[in-house]
């Protein structure tokens, strides 16, 4: 009789201990369940640039502008209707712009006899530095300076180089932030010619504008 009682008491102690044990684990798991996702979220923050803003412009009409080229001629976006346009924002002080400059010229040499148009827009720069840049990289496609920064604002440029592709109807089909290679330029210009829109923008090395 005594023995049975003792056994019951003992087993209930064991039960009690194991329930305390599970309480323990439950608390630890709850703690982890709150803290780990939070840390994960903060760590995720490193993978993005808070100043990086997805453009709402893709698929819309490209904002019109008139640009005075370095040789004094004026060019307006409306004049380029019917052609696929590659628009590239750059500055002489931006290392990724220097890195892509030769590639862009290579692409231009391949495409200059087709219906495609290349247009470089220099922003936040002095004329002297910009001309030196063009000479250094032997750039032959038309370039001009957006002295007031108005075109850059219309296109929401925030990191350069930034490139836009515009189809013959004047619609933006693709945007690429950062350095871009000649293959992408060729491929995306070909798509722009057919009016194919890529909603997701591309990304390369870029530099936030000043």
């Amino acid at each position, binding site marked *: 009789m005594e023995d049975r009682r003792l056994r019951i008491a003992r087993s209930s102690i064991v039960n009690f201990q194991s329930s305390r044990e599970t309480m323990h684990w439950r608390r630890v798991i709850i703690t982890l369940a709150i803290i780990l996702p939070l840390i994960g979220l903060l760590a995720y923050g*490193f993978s993005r640039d808070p100043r990086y803003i997805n453009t709402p412009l893709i698929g819309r009409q490209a904002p019109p502008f008139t640009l005075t080229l370095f040789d004094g001629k004026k060019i307006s976006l409306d004049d380029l209707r019917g052609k696929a346009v590659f628009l590239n924002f750059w500055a002489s002080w931006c290392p990724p712009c220097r890195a892509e400059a030769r590639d862009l010229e290579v692409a231009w040499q391949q495409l200059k006899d087709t219906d495609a148009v290349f247009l470089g827009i220099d922003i936040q720069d002095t004329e002297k530095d910009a001309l030196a840049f063009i000479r250094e990289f032997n750039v032959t496609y038309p370039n001009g300076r957006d002295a007031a920064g108005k075109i850059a604002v219309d296109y929401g440029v925030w990191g350069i180089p930034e490139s836009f592709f515009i189809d013959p109807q004047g619609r933006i089909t693709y945007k690429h932030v950062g350095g871009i290679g000649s293959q992408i330029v060729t491929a995306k210009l070909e798509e722009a010619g057919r009016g194919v829109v890529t909603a997701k923008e591309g990304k390369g090395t870029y530099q936030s504008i000043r």
Partner: protein
Amino acid sequence: MTATIGYSSVLVALLLALWGIIAPIIGSRTGRERFFASTRAAILGQFLLVTLASSSLIYALVTTDFSIKYVAFNTTRATPIYYRVTGLWGALEGSLLLWEWILIIFSGLVAWIYKDRHRELMPWVLMILSTVSAFFLAVIAFASNPFESVFPVPLDGRGLNPLLEDANMITHPPLLYAGFVGLTVPYAFAMAALIIGKLDEAWIVTTRRWTLTAWFFLTMGNLVGAWWSYHVLGWGGYWAWDPVENAAFMPWLPATAFLHSVQVQERRRMLKVWNLSLIIIAFSLTIFGTFLTRSGILSSIHAFSSGPVGTVFLAFLSFVLLGSFGLLAYRADHLKGQPELDSMVSRESAFLLNNVVLVSALFTIFLGTIFPLISEAVVGVQVSVGAPYFNSVTVPLFLLLVFLMGVGPMIAWRMASWDNLKRNFLWPAVASLLCALVLFVWKIRDFLPLLGFTLLAFVVFSILFDTALAVRARHRLAGEGIFSALATLARRNQRRYGGLIVHLGIVLIVLGIAGSMGYSVEREATLQLGEALTVGRYHVQFEGLRGSQQPTHYRVEAAFRVFNQGHELGVLSPALKFFPNQQSPVGRAVFRSTLAEDIYLILSGFSELQQNRATLKVLLRPLLAWLWFGGLVIVFGTIVAIWPFRQKGRGWRMEDGG
């Protein structure tokens, strides 16, 4: 040479900090007292070495030793000497060193003051302090070294950000850091209590003054930051709910909650787990704040230099959170057996509600701050959360808090009787309702401001009424006059009356915020020479532009003669400053302040100098001066609360009973 001395001091201090972590563990394993004593020596050694390192950096800054990169980036030969010294916290590397310096000063004080007390607790307190110190020293030594050299040595330095060359920048960062660092002390005591499993109220009683001091520095740091923003940044506001501002404000909320809820634990032995959690959260938020401002994961109008320290801070933050809450979860069994609330109408429940409100405010602000991250991580949509969200969510919470500020200090512990309620609150309630009626008849008709002003009046009346009753009692009892009775009361019960004065300061701050948020007026116009703009009672007349070359920048000033109902206030000249190495100009706003309202002038644009046309923005901010005045009242209240009055035969009271 200076750099070598500084850097090697940091390295040796790091070794001492590591020893400070290991020694208590060896000591408790082997039971040898010597190891505990060496922990204290390690802290004091770190104190000397970090002081030496900081002094070397200050020396290098003052003597413009441009062979050190940090000096070259943050001073010039033209920088006046006081801004050379404040260059210590002008950028990331130096401010981390300042942080560590304040931390080790506080740790040294702890080690010295409690030399012969808390024998069980102290080794672990010092171990936690050493751990935090080791982290900062490691960051300084390996991730963001202020003593890094630069070659070739530049002829002149680059100088501070011009916005930081302001008197308030001398005080704002050290105050904020002192607040952040101060929270480390109660945190270290709490963790030590958890480690040894001795979870009575000792750690709370011991750290009360530390917590209050940290709270005070946090409050002042935020207020001076707001004042700087209003005074220098020239946008007419003082708070923008920017992530960086939130980061500085968030630790204030759990710290405030903690100050109140510890009283419940001291008195009723309730809320043990809650108090531990609050102090862990408050401390973690100070680390989180630095992580947020220095990692660049959220976009902010405050341009901070962000280095590689973001990841390191995140790692330390996870270590702190997992370690502390893990330990808390492990020890939670020891924290059981708390008495229940006796009544919903009691001081305990008022404090509890105050805590719930403060923590809810913390949660909503935290959520709003990191929401851009959540949104992008979960649904891939970029959003930004601005002032409208924060205002609409926090204003009701803060109003409730104001109400509790009137109720909490007066209501009885355990269970308030009907009689107690009637005695303490009948007249204040009647008086504040009369106040509301007067305001309503006068011109305040909107619900929220009316409610806000009524609640503020209620707090003031309840404090005055309660104090008046106490003064009358002393007058009858001891025959003292009003002022000596007040002095006796305050000295006998420092905490209570200091706290009530701080509450009055908070009332003034809320008054300033409510007035300037609810009733500000903004007008903008482009004026020709001689033209005038009328805003409210003010008449602002444009008297011409003037350009001048200053030592560091070119300045365009516009002169405006300001009249208040025909009475001339003089000429105010807001300006735009053009610094050679900055793209956009820096505005210099000017304002005139009265108790009723501020008039604030911003030059937002101008024509060619000859044409004499200026675009002017005029802001009227009612009651704003009270915000700053409230800050002064808080200074006074805190002094009343913590000043170690000499008691006869007891020496300095470092730990008062309650």
